């Protein structure tokens, strides 16, 4: 077995038994990055030297008997997490060569637990996008190919496209990601890996470049559900520097994976059955439910009546917050500056040159919906609908323990396919935005393939702060699916 094929669980065991060293694991991943990143473009920055130093330090700790929970595991870090001393770009030109003098809480937690950072993963600019096409550092290629391999480049999904592609292609064992409307779950589904958006407040947002503060949720992507649980265990925890961080203990997520689903009630929301949804998505959904039933779960039809308003609500709330959050990128204190005749001119030139088209579109939408005369009609109303969506889930979770839906309305699409139609692009988030609006945890788990052999995922939603049940259901689906196919594009076949 090649060292890049290890799961995190497997690697930790092998490291513990002395079968491999972190140095070897890290070197193998750096080699894979060197071989494949020029093609996949999953990393915008590779920190090879620092990674090797960290790996050797990890091996020393292990030799001294003071290994930490994630010691020696090589990870990719979405380039939205500020990393002390390493350039952080948010995949935007406007941050220029910004090198944060601080480490985000989530990455600091991972470092505390011994993780090795390989580099910074590509993403949609400021995490705004569903195909990683809006990155100032170029598109990311999905390592999966259609069965007929007609040479089509597929998107990895977004916004955590670099994280998902890197993990799927074995350039990293796992990665940090963030999910504002589906940015963990959709790329995980497109790349055939698992991705967990935990409950809002479970992972600190401190040091994560903000997109939409009330929705942004850091979380992990990895090749197995259990690996996601292991990573989340390190990433999560109360942070007094984030006022929205939840002050509650972090449970043993990894242990929860093996709980099984016997006796659980699984909800199937009728509103997620979209008109025109491909048969294979519906079939996959039914298959997933059948597996769970076979494992002893009870399947229950439920209704989440305000689901159809979720997408428009999301596309008011998220841009509104973004328009304000991105005001700080003004060329005055850090990042890129384009000089101008006066202050206003400097702002306009800096922001015109620094932001890409999608970011500008969302800033304009957000500015519009917050403007005097429109605020009540858009923002206030969207907040009311958001409360109703949350209430739908609260009602549903009185009678079910988890909800299972498709993760995405389709498999990965071709690069450039939906570029000219923002609304078609926004529809990618149709199954995922509800969890962000409600704040609840959502997991994407690989469950099958479409006719062209591209991965498809199911989504498991759970109660606030009940990631454990979500992990248990996800693991049951994963075990039943017994998927063995791997992406065609890998460094070491």
């Amino acid at each position, binding site marked *: 077995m090649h060292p890049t094929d290890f799961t995190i669980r497997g690697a930790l065991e092998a490291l513990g038994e002395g079968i491999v060293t972190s140095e070897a694991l890290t070197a193998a991943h750096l080699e894979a990055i060197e071989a494949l990143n020029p093609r996949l473009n999953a990393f915008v920055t590779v920190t090879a030297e620092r990674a090797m130093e960290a790996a050797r330090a990890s091996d020393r700790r292990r030799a001294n008997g003071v290994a930490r929970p994630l010691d020696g595991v090589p990870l990719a870090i979405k380039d939205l*997490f*500020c990393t002390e001393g390493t350039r*952080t770009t*948010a995949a935007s030109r406007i*941050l220029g060569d*910004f090198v*944060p*003098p*601080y480490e*985000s809480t989530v990455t600091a937690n991972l470092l505390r637990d011994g993780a090795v950072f390989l580099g910074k993963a590509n993403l949609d600019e400021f995490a705004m996008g569903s195909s990683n096409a809006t990155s100032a550092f170029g598109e990311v290629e999905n390592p999966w190919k259609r069965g007929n391999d007609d040479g089509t480049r597929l998107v990895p999904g977004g916004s955590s496209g670099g994280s998902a592609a890197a993990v799927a292609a074995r350039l990293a064992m796992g990665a940090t990601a963030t999910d504002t409307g589906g940015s963990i779950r959709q790329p995980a589904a497109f790349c055939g890996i698992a991705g967990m958006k935990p409950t809002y407040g479970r992972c600190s*947002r*401190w*040091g*994560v*470049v*903000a997109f*939409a*503060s*009330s929705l942004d949720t850091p979380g992990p992507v990895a090749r197995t559900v259990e690996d996601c649980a292991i990573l989340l265990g390190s990433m999560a925890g109360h942070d*007094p*520097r*984030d*006022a*929205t961080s939840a002050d509650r203990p972090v449970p043993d997520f990894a242990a929860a994976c093996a709980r099984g689903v016997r006796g659980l009630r699984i909800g199937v929301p009728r509103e997620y059955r979209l008109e025109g949804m491909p048969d294979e998505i519906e079939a996959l959904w039914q298959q997933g439910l059948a597996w769970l039933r076979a494992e002893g779960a009870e399947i229950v039809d439920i209704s989440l009546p305000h689901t159809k308003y979720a997408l428009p609500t999301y596309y008011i709330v998220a841009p*509104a*917050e973004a*328009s*304000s959050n*991105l*005001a*700080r990128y*003004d060329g*005055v*204190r*850090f990042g890129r500056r384009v000089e101008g005749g006066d*202050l*206003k001119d400097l*702002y306009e030139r800096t922001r015109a040159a620094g932001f890409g088209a999608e970011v500008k579109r969302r800033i304009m939408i957000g*500015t519009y919906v*917050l*403007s*005097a005369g429109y*605020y009540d009609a858009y*923002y206030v109303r969207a907040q009311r609908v958001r409360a109703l969506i949350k209430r739908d889930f609260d009602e549903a979770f009185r009678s079910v323990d988890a909800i299972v839906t498709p993760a995405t309305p389709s498999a990965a699409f071709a690069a450039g396919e939906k570029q000219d139609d923002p609304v078609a692009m926004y529809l990618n988030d149709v199954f995922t935005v509800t969890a962000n609006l409600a704040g609840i945890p959502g997991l994407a788990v690989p469950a099958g393939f479409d006719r062209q052999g591209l991965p498809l995922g199911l989504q498991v939603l759970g109660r606030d702060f009940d990631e454990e049940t979500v992990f248990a259901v996800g693991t049951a689906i994963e075990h039943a699916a017994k998927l063995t196919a791997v992406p065609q594009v890998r460094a070491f076949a």
Partner: protein
Amino acid sequence: MSYTIEGQTGPWELVIGLEVHAQVTSQAKLFSGAATAFGAAPNSQVSFVDAGFPGMLPVINRECVAQAVRTGLGLNAQVNPWSRFDRKNYFYADLPQGYQISQFAHPIVGTGVVTVELSDGSVKEIGITRLHLEQDAGKSIHDQHPTKSYIDLNRSGVALMEIVSEPDMRSPEEAGAYLTKLRQILRYLGTCDGNMEEGSLRADVNVSVRKSGEAFRTRCEVKNVNSIRFVMQAVEAEARRQIEVWESGGTVEQETRLFDTVRGETRSMRSKEDAHDYRYFPDPDLPPLVIDPAWIEELRAGLPELPDARRARYVNEFGLSAYDASVLVAEKETAAFYEEVAAGRDPKVAANWVMGDFFAMLNRLGKGIEDSPVSARHLGALLDLIADRTLSGKMAKEVLEAMGETGKPPGTIVEERGLRQVTDTGAIEAAVDAILAANPDKVAQYREKPTLFGWFVGQVMKAMKGQGNPALVNEVLKAKLDA
């Protein structure tokens, strides 16, 4: 008769409301741990939160909330157990986040009332509309370089309380009295140092004029007035300007104006059309501010005595006149000084000395009560020396003067100068006898002319180098002359 300004068309009434920005006294800023000291080197008190760096988040400073609650209680106002922070969005170089965190829709403190005393002895209640917490912006400095502006972010993120009054004031005097009283309450509470020169307290003055009995006319806001005197001047100048506009057939436009303290007039800063659309919305980084009623009660229990209560106590318990009590409570430091002097002594005598010779001495020395060379303890000791007849009132004045010059306690000065008052009747009798024996002609005249008594007193005191107890000298002299 209420205050009016006489125009060509008759008398005009003034309508005034104040928005006061008071810097919260606290060690750290409202949403970051950075320090707040005044006068520090530029950009030396700035955290990454204050500078708006990527991924930085605000966390509310509990002490600033406590200060706002204390202030609300001190203004007899409703403290809202649920309030919320909003973002006020606008671009400026000294506003690093591109928005100011403020409380727009749901302030921490609701309606309250402040009672002011006016010079004619009348009392007026001024309504408080609300008090909310917000962060200050940084400072742009435009005059240090021909083509560049400098930015100092030390103030960025410092906690402010914006205290909004009802449009209840009707004259410059009332506006001045309100601001004076508000400042006094804040200083008593210790929630704002009230230092207007350093910008800890600034007022935006809303002024309109109307004919008697009319509804409100359009108001203008005069921004950032930084002294009580200027507030009063700005009110009058702006009212006169508006009267002129109305009387010349024009219309007062709602706008923001500045007060030119040199020329004593207001001038336009920006009109309503130029007003920003601030796009207020709830700050998603901050959960609603929920205050436990038990904590409010705890803060209430810890409140110091406020000026109104203290003045009432001086009148009722100490028997001071309302005027004297007002003078003594005006400044927290004066009241504290007075109470230390009065403790265990006659409160009226203490008041007379503090307000009389002591204030006069400070004036002469050009000093304030904070840097007075005479401490309350020493002044109290001086009063004790009068009470036990060691010093006469006249001698005590002399001793106080020496205390002011040297900073020494009164006992030391009495020792050094041998100023001890003579109360030994034997010594006084001897001195009296000597004077009477030396002046038989005067004694004879006295029978005809009792007003000569004062001359004898003067002679005896002179012989005793001023140290004879005046009452005893009088007593002995009287007895001997009338014998």
